């Protein structure tokens, strides 16, 4: 106990359930909760925190849709839902449900893999937006922001006006959120997660406001929460009524620390979000230029400046945005990306030439603005000049540079890699992905057991219904069966769509086909073409 009190020092604040501070008459009945260490110190400078809890961040990757769509995460067979759109919620799905179970309830469910990188970017973007309210914005990974707003209240015309502006702004970004306001960041976060939007402005009313919150708002590990349930504790208030020593023995020290932080008995300094460094430079053209290729020499000057900027800081970047500024029209944005970050101007010039070489300008260009993506520390792999990268890493980087060039001209979607997925249904046994060095390291060549029988080298995107005569399938004439049946079923929990008998059949022209007959359901006994052996 002693060290903790010493730690509180100047930053300690007056707890709400301190009998002596009962100015508002909101303190619940005695006995005094033993959890709170007695206050000894003068009040710290007042703080007020606004927590923004994003409730559907994983869904940012999902297109708006009236059909049920969900985002899933987890490995192989135990993938669970981490976010559901409105239609999915209406269909009775909820986060935490296993994907297999969800697909029984909603057979045509659309699902996406979770993309943590995209979520991080989205959160950082929101953090930059939030810096319009206060200089002190902190990211609470993985899906919340904390804003210290006490200092901005006067500027914004009071708390109500500030909250109003923040919620309007968030709504405009189509980002569903919950908001909580409290004198400590953790309390604000917990209130937000509980959906308690009423602001708690004073330290005095904090304990009362936190008391009825369920323990799930803390997101403590499942075991901790189970232990609490076993003790008959369901709310924060009930937890704080337990003897402090008992809690310290029973649970990890982190739990007590978090409680103390929430109630303001322990300082909780927050790391300020600092937007990553970026290069930005504008270049006015001597004359307006109407042809894209005429812009290249000027782009080269900007790229040289970018290289200088990055090298001075020992940095590199993986994305660039070039804005072509016109007199009357909105600027044209040209985005370039590389798999591996680089500082070298020449690397970018090649990509830019591909892009601008084919572009038709909407209007003459009067100025250029080059903006870099986040400047990341230049790693060994990007040390192409001084050769600090090893030979293999260098070759690897060049292998991926090919993809950068292809993407610059053909577009992001035109280039893809694949990985295998352990799934019984043939069409689900692989997935397209963006090839990156990390992705291929995480997914070694053949992580899954391969099917024992031969699979066709071509698979149709969708099984194609086959014509039939006398119950026998046809494809440009009679089919001759060579092998089969192979029964493929993914189990009752997947719905009935994958109960199939597969055969190898040969057409009159000699093509070998992979066809199946549906065993049950709406399409029972019908024949489909699914693949070509080629």
């Amino acid at each position, binding site marked *: 106990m002693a060290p903790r009190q010493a730690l509180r020092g100047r930053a300690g604040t007056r707890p709400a359930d301190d009998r002596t501070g009962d100015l508002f008459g909101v303190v619940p009945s005695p006995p005094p909760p033993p959890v709170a260490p007695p206050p000894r110190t003068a009040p710290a400078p007042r703080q007020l925190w606004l927590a923004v809890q994003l409730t559907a961040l994983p869904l940012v990757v999902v297109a708006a849709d009236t059909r049920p769509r969900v985002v899933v995460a987890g490995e192989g067979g135990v993938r669970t839902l981490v976010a559901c759109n409105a239609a999915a919620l209406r269909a009775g799905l909820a986060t935490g449900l296993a994907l297999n179970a969800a697909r029984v309830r909603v057979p045509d469910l659309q699902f996406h893999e979770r993309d943590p990188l995209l979520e991080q970017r989205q959160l950082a973007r929101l953090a930059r937006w939030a810096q319009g309210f206060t200089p002190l914005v902190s990211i609470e990974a993985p899906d919340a922001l904390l804003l210290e707003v006490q200092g901005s209240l006067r500027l914004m015309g009071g708390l109500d006006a500030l909250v109003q502006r923040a919620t309007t702004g968030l709504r405009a970004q189509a980002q569903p959120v919950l908001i909580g306001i409290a004198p400590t960041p953790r309390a604000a976060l917990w209130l937000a997660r509980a959906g308690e939007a009423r602001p708690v402005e004073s330290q005095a009313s904090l304990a009362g406001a936190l008391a009825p919150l369920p323990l799930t708002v803390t997101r403590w590990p499942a075991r901790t929460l189970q232990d609490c349930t076993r003790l008959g504790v369901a709310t924060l208030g009930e937890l704080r009524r337990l003897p402090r020593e008992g809690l310290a023995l029973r649970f990890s020290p982190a739990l007590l620390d978090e409680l103390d932080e929430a109630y303001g008995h322990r300082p909780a300094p927050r790391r300020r979000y600092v937007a990553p460094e970026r290069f930005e430079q504008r270049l006015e053209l001597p004359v307006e230029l109407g042809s894209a290729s005429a812009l290249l020499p000027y782009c080269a000057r900007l790229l040289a400046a970018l290289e200088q900027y990055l090298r001075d800081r020992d940095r590199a970047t993986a994305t660039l945005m070039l804005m072509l500024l016109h007199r009357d029209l909105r600027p044209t944005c040209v985005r370039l990306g590389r798999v591996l970050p680089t500082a070298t101007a020449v690397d970018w010039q090649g990509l830019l030439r591909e892009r601008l070489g084919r572009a038709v300008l909407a209007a003459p260009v009067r100025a250029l603005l080059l903006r870099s993506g986040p400047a990341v520390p230049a790693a060994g792999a990007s040390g192409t000049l001084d050769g600090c990268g090893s030979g293999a890493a260098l070759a690897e980087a060049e292998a991926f540079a090919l993809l950068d060039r292809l993407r610059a001209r053909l577009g992001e979607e035109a280039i893809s890699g*694949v990985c295998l997925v352990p799934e019984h249904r043939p069409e689900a046994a692989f997935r397209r992905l963006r090839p990156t060095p990390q992705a291929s390291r995480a997914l070694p060549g053949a992580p899954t057991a391969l099917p024992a029988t031969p*699979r066709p080298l*071509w698979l149709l995107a969708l099984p194609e219904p086959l014509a039939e005569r006398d119950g026998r399938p046809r494809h440009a004439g009679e089919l001759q069966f060579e092998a089969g049946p192979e029964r493929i079923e993914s189990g009752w929990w997947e719905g009935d769509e994958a109960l199939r008998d597969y055969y190898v059949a040969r057409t009159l022209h000699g093509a070998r086909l992979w066809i199946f007959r549906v065993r049950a359901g709406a399409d029972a006994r019908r024949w489909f073409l699914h693949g070509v052996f080629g």
Partner: protein
Amino acid sequence: MNRSLEALLAGADVWRARGGGPGATACQPSGWPRLDAELPGGGWPLGTLIELLLPEPGIGELSLLLPALRALAVGPPGQARRWFAWVAPPHAPYPPALAQGGIAADRLLLISAVRMEDRLWALEQTLQSGHCAAVLAWLDRADDRWLRRLKLAAESGQTLTVLFRPRHQQAGGSPASLRLALEPAAAGLDLMVLKRRGGGPVRVHDVLGA
């Protein structure tokens, strides 16, 4: 063949119309003995264009290439990543089947390009990069000028480069070093070798047959 003739043939100043010797390109055995016997160098030539003419896709053209692709996938240890690029295939190649054939999924690179000009450009880029073990491309039409550019690009590396073209384009000439017309047969594929280095046309029957 007597010894002095052998010695003469082994000299660098004698170019033989058929078979090995100087000027022969590196080859990858196709894995089909009857075919290898007819191919100069005993396999698919690397670093040049190979053209396969098909009446329709799916008659066994990939099975024909699979043993060579598998051998290229193994490669020397410690070697950097080399892609297996698929440029504008008619369907999606099915990764589990390729994995069964010994080609790891993380080496596959699928490139889609609708416009023929983009397709040829992508092909040229992949060939010039030297980072592809094999490039398979589907071209329904390509003029001679482009094919010559592609051949130049292919010659800058050691990539197995296979162009799949429709059978009806057999009439037009081609700069490809090796041209084969494929026909389905009772026991696999019949191949018509239309053009090869140092040899006339020849028919190879039942290549995929046991």
